């Protein structure tokens, strides 16, 4: 069974304190790994897609990396506005729907 596990469940950082969120997956035939940001009471907002091991994507203070077993979302010098839940999802063979992790709830304190 395809599984996506995110850790930690919750993370509290001081403003400027860099850290990483983890998404590990056990799937057969990965066809893409996705990161989303979700603010309370809103729908997920697309951040990145990663397709192959070694690939990296960056956007402002966020950098996503991918290996054959996991992905990391690195947050450099976070600001309070980066506080949100970050969701990881994977797509496997064919046109199958995304499999989501439960998310990491990030709080950045000023």
């Amino acid at each position, binding site marked *: 069974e395809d599984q996506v596990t995110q850790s930690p469940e919750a993370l509290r950082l001081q403003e400027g304190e860099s850290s990483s969120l983890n998404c590990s997956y056990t799937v057969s035939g990965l066809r893409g790994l996705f990161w989303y940001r979700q603010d309370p009471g809103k*729908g997920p907002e697309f951040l990145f897609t990663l397709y192959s091991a070694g690939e990296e994507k960056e956007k402002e203070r966020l950098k996503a990396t991918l290996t054959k077993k996991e992905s990391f979302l690195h947050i450099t010098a976070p600001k309070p506005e980066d506080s949100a839940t970050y*969701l990881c999802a994977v797509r496997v063979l064919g*046109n199958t*729907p995304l499999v989501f*992790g439960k998310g990491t*709830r990030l709080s950045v304190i000023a």
Partner: protein
Amino acid sequence: DAMVIQNPRYQVTQFGKPVTLSCSQTLNHNVMYWYQQKSSQAPKLLFHYYDKDFNNEADTPDNFQSRRPNTSFCFLDIRSPGLGDAAMYLCATSLIGSREQFFGPGTRLTVL
């Protein structure tokens, strides 16, 4: 701006009273999805349409049904809502063959 729109944003219904949630999109995407998301949980896929082809997840309760009258609109019908159906309902779209899904803002359903 091209987007996914959900109405209403907040819906309150009574136990057992049918309710319909709507989703529309201006992205001209041919795939539409309905997810249920409860607090601190991952979005759970209920159904999806590839164009007009309806795909129901095996564990989606019979109480939930969907309609897609045209490319732009999709509806989620809950025939007899129970207290356990209170959740955020998310609509998403994508192109067939494309991997990214784009989500609407969600509808928060409360069941009294």
